[in-house]
């Protein structure tokens, strides 16, 4: 069933919407959640929450890209759940590693401290990603949106792991420069 047919089921308030969504995107969402939560059981719960959110959001929304829409919900829910678990010392998976790596994007303590609005940050990130070469962009998004490991990215894109690491390092450095230039970090 194509995406628009699935969305039409949501609009028709048909419960088949969820089963068809799960059939088509269950694995995808599960993978997104699993990389963040590192637990099959927690991921399963997170994905179920995603279907519920989708049910609430459609209608009135008609997602332009259903996979990205569902992936984004799953990612956000998983990160929230991870945050909660982390507070309870249960955090694991790719998130701590990614957070550690992203610290390299943040200038040192000598910089002016500023509170940054997330929307502003997203806008900067969109501009930043737009300007990146496609290869670097895809690697960066794989690592920090999908939370894929360096090894997985290397295999998927058929690159050496060192190439992926170097690309990520350079991209983070560029992001740091941009954040400094924008005066938001």
């Amino acid at each position, binding site marked *: 069933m194509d995406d628009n047919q699935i969305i039409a089921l949501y609009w*028709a308030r048909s419960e088949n919407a969820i089963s068809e969504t799960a059939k088509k995107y269950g694995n995808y969402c599960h993978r997104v959640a699993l990389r963040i939560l590192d637990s099959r059981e927690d991921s399963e719960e997170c994905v179920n929450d995603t279907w519920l959110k989708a049910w609430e959001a459609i209608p009135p929304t008609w997602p332009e*890209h259903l996979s990205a829409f569902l992936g*984004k919900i799953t990612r956000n829910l998983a990160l929230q759940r991870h945050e909660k678990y982390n507070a309870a010392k249960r955090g694991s998976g790719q998130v701590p590693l990614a957070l550690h790596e*992203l610290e390299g994007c943040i200038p040192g*303590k000598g*910089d002016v401290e500023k509170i940054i609005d997330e929307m502003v940050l997203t806008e900067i990130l969109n501009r930043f990603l737009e300007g990146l070469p496609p290869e670097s962009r895809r690697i960066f998004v794989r690592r920090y949106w999908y939370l894929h490991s360096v090894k997985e990215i290397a295999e998927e894109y*058929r690159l050496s792991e060192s190439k992926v690491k170097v690309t990520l390092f350079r991209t983070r450095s560029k992001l740091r420069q941009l*954040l400094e230039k924008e005066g938001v970090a």
Partner: protein
Amino acid sequence: MMESRQILSALGEIKEKFVLEAEAGEPFREAGAADVDRAAGKTWRMSRRKAVTGRKKTVTGQRKAEMGRRNGRGWKILTAACAAILGVAILGGGLGAGEWFRVGTQSRTEETPAVGVVIPPLEVSHEENSVADMIGFFIYQGRVYVQYRLENGIDDLVGEYVGRATGSIDEWSSEEDYVELAGSISGDIYTVNGMSPEFMLCIPRGEQVDLFINDNGLTLETGADLFEERLHLSGNYLAVEYEGRESWFYGKEEVYSVGSEHETVISRFVEAMNEAEFMWAEDIPLEEGQRNIFDDKEIYHLYFRMENGLTVHLRLFDGGYVMFSALHRVCVQIDEAAFSEMTELLVKENPSAGN
């Protein structure tokens, strides 16, 4: 001090196109690249299999992009495949409230005019796998209106209130449910300013307008029957924009303006469309190895931004074929010189927009 957690969180809201691009999973290198072989060692063979899977996923991604875009935030694009099975027809001629519809497959046409095409009333059977009830449509005055696109701004487009679509049709509906004002979507129906209500109606949705087109039984001999009589193109567009097929297909939204200094070229193009005879898109000859016109012949998308806020979206195919995006089974083949003049202009205006 900003935390890395904020960056990770903000990344969750980046544009979907970046997420889809990364999801595609296409390998960067050609199979057999020596350094990758050395670096990946044994895993290379596994990766190669994954690369094949990745390509399949990419095709899916392309389809999703194609399906999801352009008709206004995901409202139905009726693809050729979909069109072949979609349809709603009035059985037994004129139909008033309480009469019923049958759902089924669409035949090409039984009427063959000397010139042009007659888009048949769609024969719709109530078969189990029919997707008719999945398409956004409603029935008004015995005609079936199918979603065209979602436009921004309601002030100039929305006319008189004509009724309320009940949205009562779903995949379990029976033939008896296909009554006046029934359909797969609900909302208050209005006329569209400047458009015949027999051809186009709309349902306002907040700040946007969902447009619907009825093509059942439409007789189109020359382009003027559609582009002038129904869409009133000449003299009513404020701007013309375009994007390459690649951009449209992947949802890149790299849309460019055609400068107003090129009005002569645009006028000649419109004139050529008006003069050309309508034909069935499936009659466009394919070269060896080509699967269909949408995958193998499409080159540009043209958007005529009209004074009333409507967008007339045209699809251009190699060989001089032009199609109104809402009527994807028919097209015109226009004068070669006018077509080339336009496509050459688009290449000149922005070489990277082409394919």
